[in-house]
């Protein structure tokens, strides 16, 4: 993975501190061309990996990328699935089985609902695999070397102790897409324990890592200790702590930590993208 990954929150009006800012972003990026323009700006500073949710609009972005293979020949996308709000809103309206029925392609789930028979482990894994395949459709022909499970699902399985589902995701991504599986989580220490216990070594884990300990469940000290002593390929996200930290200080902290393979950030203006990248390069060099 490259040192810097470009995120997509700004494109889809995800702002953790202000609804007003998120509305402004939603207006700024209402056209796909505005997203592409920002991605191209990021590319001009040497960022070639776009880490994004499987939002419907990403399908259009993939189409543009597919249609210009020369321009995007080094460009990679790290899909993060699923786009949780699509499912969350559907569950409020349709319930859990109603939602699965709506999103699992084909007859498998309908047959299962009717059957009244016991559900086997392989059935749940098959449902998950079908959902993964449905989400992956839009990326056909695009280079996706790492595929992530979104934090709300990773952490849901974690709390439900459904370790096998996490392993199932890992295996399917590897087998079918010849890609590495990554996990986004708000509970990195707990997740690492579970993955290791299930034989997944040196996993790719993307989690909040920032100077103020924002969304670092269990406490910042445990995170720092793990980065020092354990084996994982860590991606730091929310490095600005939701905007609570001065950007320079925020980057200095993250660059100073051991064992952070990549830093994920998103920004909507060219100046902010450039600034963040320069800060990362600056503090990386200072460390050396």
């Amino acid at each position, binding site marked *: 993975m490259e040192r810097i990954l470009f995120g997509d929150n700004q494109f*889809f*009006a*995800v*702002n*953790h*501190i*202000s*609804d*007003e800012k*998120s509305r402004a972003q*939603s207006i700024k990026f209402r056209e796909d061309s505005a997203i592409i323009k920002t991605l191209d700006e990021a590319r001009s500073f040497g960022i070639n990996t776009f880490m994004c949710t499987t939002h419907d609009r990403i399908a259009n972005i993939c189409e543009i990328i597919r249609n210009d293979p020369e321009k995007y020949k080094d460009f990679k996308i790290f899909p993060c699935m699923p786009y949780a*709000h699509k499912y*969350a*809103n559907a*569950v*409020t*309206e*349709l*319930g*859990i*089985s*109603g939602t699965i029925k709506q999103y699992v392609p084909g007859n498998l789930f309908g047959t*299962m*609902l009717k059957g*009244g028979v*016991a*559900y086997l*482990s392989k059935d*749940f894994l098959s449902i998950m695999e079908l959902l993964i395949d449905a989400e992956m459709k839009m990326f056909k022909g695009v280079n996706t070397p790492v595929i992530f499970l979104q934090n*709300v699902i990773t*952490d*849901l*399985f*974690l*709390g*439900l*102790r*459904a*370790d*096998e*589902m996490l392993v199932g995701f890992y295996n399917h991504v590897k087998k079918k897409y010849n890609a590495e599986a990554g996990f986004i989580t*708000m*509970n990195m220490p*707990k997740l690492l324990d579970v993955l290791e216990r299930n034989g997944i070594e040196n996993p790719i884990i993307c989690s909040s890592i920032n100077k*103020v*300990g*924002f*969304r*670092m*469940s*269990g*406490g910042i000290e445990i995170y720092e200790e793990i980065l020092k002593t354990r084996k994982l390929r860590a991606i730091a996200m929310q490095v600005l*702590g*939701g*905007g*609570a930290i001065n950007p320079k200080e925020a980057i200095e902290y993250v660059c100073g930590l051991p064992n952070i393979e990549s830093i994920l950030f998103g920004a909507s203006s060219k100046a902010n993208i450039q600034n963040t990248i320069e800060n990362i390069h600056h503090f990386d060099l200072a460390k050396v």
Partner: protein
Amino acid sequence: MIKVALIGAGKMGISHLSILGAHPDVDLVGACDTSKMITDFLSRYGKFNCFTDYQKMVDETKPDAVFVAVPTKFHYPVIKYLLEKKINVFAEKPFCLNAEQGLELIALAGKQQVVNQVGYHNKFIGTFSEVRKIVNSGALGEIYHFVGEAYGPVVIKAKSETWRSDPSEGGGCLLDYASHVIDLINDLLAPVNSVKGSLLKSIFSKNVEDAVYALLELSNGVSGVLSVNWSDETYRKMSTTVTIVGTKGKIVSDANELRVFLKDANSLKGYSKGWNVKYITDLTEPVDFYLRGEEYSAQVDYFVKAVAGKVPNSINTFQSAWYTDNAIELIKKSSK
């Protein structure tokens, strides 16, 4: 360790189960649901002891506390059964389908001296707790108006009907979405006392309202507006905002951002004259396990601590949730 069981593993139930499953002081002794798909999943993967009959689960597992996350129309019989067995209860919102049933359960919970809590999670959001503090400090002067709003994209086209679209089972925007806002207003200012007028509008749904607009008057005489619409796709997810206006200042707050305008300097510690902005990141206490917002973990943790006797059982009690049920009933009556 506190022995906890759960009844109803739907959207909220599964979320509670995951948070409980990660809680260090909780021994999850059982989970109950009528869906075989759900119970098969939970027993196979989570190694949960699953049941389809909640009474059998309670008898066999003898929990100290039970989470009730079944459709609202079943709250009354299920909670009554649990209270009679002296079991501490966390119920999902809204509390009951009518005010009378709620009163009976409040009395019973008092008699049995059990911890009782309802899942109005907004009260565990840092910005709204700060609003409460500011209101109680008197820094806004005399409060004369409020606006409570929530918008989101739940029903954005005509679709098939489920229990969520059946008003007699607890469906609809008023019970599902608007209840959160009413509950916040009740808590931040005072309980709703009368409804001066209300409109329940169906936009895409056939049998329930998709939007609620009402003029409310509170027991302390303050009046204001409720405006809630779950068919608004300009929002990515549910967004709740309260505006409170007084003679010496004004608050506009959502779950992320708190904006306070004060006319006078030094009227409130940590705030200056004019506009002040604070963000949730400065107002949130970290949690041990994060699933989908600190507030969901915090409310579960608060309940577990209350059962263990470590905190008072004073947030989101049956009594406070009853005020919301009562307001819902008043809004319905006024719309007819």
